[in-house]
C-alpha cells in the first residue's frame, strides 16, 4: 500500500520561497500568477493492507515528524 503526504504551509504563514518563485515566473514573462505556495510531497511504501489503519498510522507520522504543525498542514492520500 502506498501513501502520499502533502505538506503545505498553513494559510496566512508567509512563504518567502513561494514568493521568490512567483517573482521568477513574472521575470520569465508568465503574467497573471497571483500567488505561489511551495510545499512538499512525501511518498511512503507501507506493508499495511488495511486502508483505515494505514491512514491512522500515517497521520500519526505527520503529527510526530513529517509536518511541523506549528506552521504546516498536511493531507494524506492512501493508494
Amino acid at each position, binding site marked *: 500500500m502506498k501513501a502520499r503526504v502533502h505538506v503545505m504551509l498553513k494559510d496566512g*504563514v*508567509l512563504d*518567502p520561497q513561494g514568493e521568490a518563485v512567483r517573482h521568477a515566473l513574472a521575470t520569465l514573462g508568465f503574467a497573471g500568477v497571483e500567488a505561489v505556495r511551495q510545499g512538499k510531497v512525501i511518498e511512503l511504501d507501507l506493508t499495511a493492507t488495511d486502508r483505515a489503519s494505514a491512514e491512522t498510522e500515517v497521520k500519526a507520522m505527520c503529527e510526530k*515528524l513529517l509536518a*511541523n504543525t506549528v506552521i504546516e498542514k498536511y493531507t494524506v492520500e492512501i493508494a
Partner: protein
Amino acid sequence: MKATVITFPGSNCDRDLAVAFEKAGASVTRVWHKDDALPQGTDIVGVPGGFSFGDYLRCGAIAAQSPIARALADHAARGGYVIGICNGFQVLTEMRLLPGVLMRNAGLKFICKPVTLTVETTDSAFTNAATKGQSLTVPVAHHDGNYTIDAEGLARLKAEDRIAFRYVANPNGSMEDIAGVLSENRRVLGMMPHPERALDGTSGGTDGSVIFRSILGAMAAA
C-alpha cells in the same frame, strides 16, 4: 558545573561550544546522538549549531527524534538547564521545548556576519551577568533564522518577559526582531546568534562571554 555537549551528524559548532563551557570553568562531557542518557550530574546541556542530518525534512526535525533528544527532554522536564544555539535552537523548537519555529530567512539568503543584539531580560541563568538593554556583537550564520510564532504565543512571550535577545537591525525577518527566547521555566534558552564564536579577541570579539559567565554564576549559586 557539569556541562554536556551533544553532537549530531552534521553538527559543526560542538567543539566550539565545549571550549566555551570549559573557558567558563565547566567540566564538559561530549555525547553522541545515539547515546540514550546524559552523564550523571549534568547541570546544563548544550545543543550546538551546524546542519544536523543535513537539514533534511526541516532543520532540526530529525535530530529532535534522536535517542539523546529523549534524554534531553527528560533533563528539561526535571528543570535542567539547556542552551541551544543556531541549529540547536531549531532542534529545541522541533522538540517543542521552546515555542515557535525558525523559518527560511525572509531574504532567502544564508546570512553569515556579525550582528548587534540587545539583551532584553536579565532574569535568566543565561543573561544575569548582563545589563538590560546591553548591546552585544555576536556572529550569525544561518539560512533559517526567521523566528515565527502565532499571535497568542508572541503575546505570551512578551507578557512573561521570555524574549532574551533582539536584533538591533533585523537580518532575517524574525518576528519582533527576536534573536533568542526562553522556556516557561526560564531554564531553556534558544538563540540564533553564536556567542561561542565571540569569546576570543583575536577572532570575533568577546561579547559572547557574558552568556557563559552568567551560566557559570547561576550554576555556582545553585
